[in-house]
């Protein structure tokens, strides 16, 4: 074979690998898969049955997941909620597509609204766009399909008092008040850290992520000063953003690397703000190597299972109840578009039938810290509002005046991180 041909063959091989690589899904491989989904065969059979002999009045809904359905984080929380719906509403059926995000190599050149069409062609009457990355697409789809219900977790299109209100009668936007969960996460971190340095593994930068990182900081600061009685100035709280909800090799920063950098520079607790489990995995690696490192997970209640020993706990979303309510309202005609920002059920934040947000403690949390955390949770339940002034933004401007209580808009549309936090408020 002469040189020219050799190059050709090399080129060909390269293209194949590229194409295949592009087709592969770039999600973080789950470390071990505590697969708690039902046997896929069952779902499949159900699907087929639906295709061939439709039972009376079924309600099919489709979810576009930004990550993998088993990412043990954000997307799995939605997937689990979908299964919760299937259990609680007879005749309901979930369809889903995963790894749906801008430029996803899984769907070259196809937008979320086009993928929603594919779900509709399988009979979906409601589409859940589960990420802010699909925000524009969700609205576009909703407006083009008045006959299909649209659910926009973490979006604010239908919030009349919000900044971005749009008329979209077939759309409901939903969010859990994760501020509380994040406060608990921050508190657990503050109660555990020995170095007084807490790292926050942030996803991309926007209103939501600033809000959640800041809430974690507020919780950490409160427990650091009020429970441990330490000086606020001694608490370091740093946010490092990776650029998206999960690792996209070559595009985002590598979250494992970011977590490592935290642990290697004196931060002994890392709070995860991303959809996947890198913070826990890296904390465990460090822990196994003899370091006293911990992480707080995010999004999905089972998340701590990845590395129980180093997990202080996980603030999680419980989308099931709100999904059930929404779908029922669509089925019985009581649908009311609008924005829902659902608080935890303070009677039992971990009640999976009532609470939109919960916190599951991890084995890494000491008994002492656990007791203190319970105390903090009780205070929150009792009406403690950490979004009360004085609160200043990172650049020093007063955001919430002394004694004033932040409005929902002020919390939702937080323009910067808070004073006392390190890290970028907007990307540079």
């Amino acid at each position, binding site marked *: 074979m002469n040189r020219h041909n050799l190059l050709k063959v090399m080129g060909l091989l390269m293209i194949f690998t590229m194409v295949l690589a592009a087709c592969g*899904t770039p999600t973080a491989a789950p470390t071990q898969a505590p697969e708690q989904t039902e046997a896929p065969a069952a779902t499949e059979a159900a699907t087929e049955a639906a295709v061939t002999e439709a039972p009376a009045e079924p309600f099919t809904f489709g979810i576009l997941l930004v990550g993998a359905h088993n990412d043990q984080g954000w997307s799995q929380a939605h997937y689990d909620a979908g299964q919760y719906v299937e259990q609680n509403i007879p005749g309901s059926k979930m369809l889903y597509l995963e790894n749906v995000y801008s430029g996803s190599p899984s769907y070259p050149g*196809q937008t979320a609204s086009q993928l929603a*069409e594919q779900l509709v*062609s399988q009979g979906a009457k409601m589409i859940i766009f589960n990420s802010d990355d699909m925000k524009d697409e969700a609205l576009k789809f909703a407006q083009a399909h008045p006959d299909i219900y649209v659910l926009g977790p973490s979006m604010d299109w239908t919030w009349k008092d919000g900044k971005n209100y749009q008329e979209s009668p077939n759309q409901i936007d939903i969010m859990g008040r994760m501020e509380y969960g994040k406060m608990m996460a921050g508190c657990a971190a503050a109660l555990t850290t020995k170095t007084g340095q807490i790292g926050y593994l942030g996803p*991309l930068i926007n209103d939501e992520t600033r809000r959640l990182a800041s809430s974690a900081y507020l919780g950490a600061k409160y427990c650091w000063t009020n429970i441990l009685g330490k000086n606020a100035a001694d608490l370091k709280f740093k946010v490092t953003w990776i650029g*998206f909800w999960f690792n996209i090799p070559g595009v985002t920063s590598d979250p494992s690397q970011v977590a490592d950098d935290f642990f290697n520079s004196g931060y002994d607790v890392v709070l995860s703000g991303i959809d996947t489990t890198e913070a826990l995995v890296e904390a465990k690696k460090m822990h196994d190597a003899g370091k006293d490192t911990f992480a707080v997970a995010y999004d999905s209640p089972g998340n701590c299972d990845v590395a129980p020993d180093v997990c202080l706990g996980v603030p999680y979303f419980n989308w099931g109840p709100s999904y059930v309510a929404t779908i029922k309202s669509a089925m019985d005609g009581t649908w009311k578009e609008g924005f829902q920002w659902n608080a935890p059920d303070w009677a039992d934040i971990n009640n999976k039938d009532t609470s939109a947000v919960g916190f599951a403690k991890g084995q890494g949390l000491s008994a002492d810290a656990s007791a203190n955390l319970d105390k903090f949770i009780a205070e929150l339940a009792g009406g403690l509002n950490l979004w009360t002034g004085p609160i200043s933004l990172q650049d020093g401007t007063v955001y919430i005046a002394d004694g004033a209580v932040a409005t929902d808009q002020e919390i939702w549309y937080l323009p910067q991180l808070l004073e006392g936090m390190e890290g970028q408020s907007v990307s540079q």
Partner: protein
Amino acid sequence: MKKNVWVNIGFQAGALVLALLITTLILAAAGAPPLKAYGSILNGAFGSSNNIVAVLITWAPLLLTTVGVLITFSAGLWNIGVEGQMTLGAIFATWMLRMLQDTNLPPALIIILGILWGMVGGALWASLAGALKTFGGVNEIFGGLGLNFVSTALTIYLVFGPWKRPGVGSMSGTQPFNEALWLPTLGTGLSPWGLGLSILAVILVYLLLRGTYFGLRLKAVGKNMKASYLLGIPTWQYSMFAFLLCGALAGLAGAIQVESVYHRLLPNISNGYGFLGLLVAMLINYQAIWVIPIALFFAALNVGSVQLQIVYKMDSSFAGVLQDLLVLLVLLGQGVRERFLGKA
């Protein structure tokens, strides 16, 4: 002559059948009843007007990258850098639109300038690969690959840096353009302009390669550089032209993506269209006339196979597997034919 054509078609058809057979086995192994699975792919691609629109939307850029690489293939060049050239087209188009969107210029003019500037961007990027090849002796495969990486890095820098959405730092993309600057679309996002330009490009490239002195010289350079030089053809200039033309077409594809599909710049804007274009070009044995149906087939596979994930929970890479298999088997078939029946 005639006989050869039929033998050729026979081999292509054989490869197709074999590829289908293997994919059928894969489907069966993955637990999807093959016939129904093919049915659902068809349904996903052509089952509704919306699905057809989705196919056409992916078809347009694929046409452009395919005819682009046909030009470079004609000149004997493996322009793997077509991905990067498409990306640069997207970047340049975004640049022009961002620069002009707050001026009083008529939106139509801005849109056209964006498209032209995108073509310039793609051509410039391609000329880099060409210059590396011609003056630096860097093989275009490696030069193109390197430039692909650089273009990705540049996009990421722009998306997170100077062109970010205010208050946001996400790879979701830059601030969308004013709606006035979106290429007008039909239904759920099909831009007749984008599609029209793409089909026009196919026709022009077909004519260029088939009927012009330029095309014939390009072919001669691609097949025998030394002889072409002795025949009086300025060989390196023609290689460079090929790069420039391919880059401009890829740039057009990138510009169409930002102006009609995404309305913003985002990472991975080229979405593998460049590599897919190379595959299509190989599959059709560099015959421009087949671009239209085969690219449509690939686009339909990409769109339709989404159904496999919905219905059978199969990985969405199925379309890619089938496409790769097809190309591999067709190339294999050509090799077998040449070995046993002599060159066509």
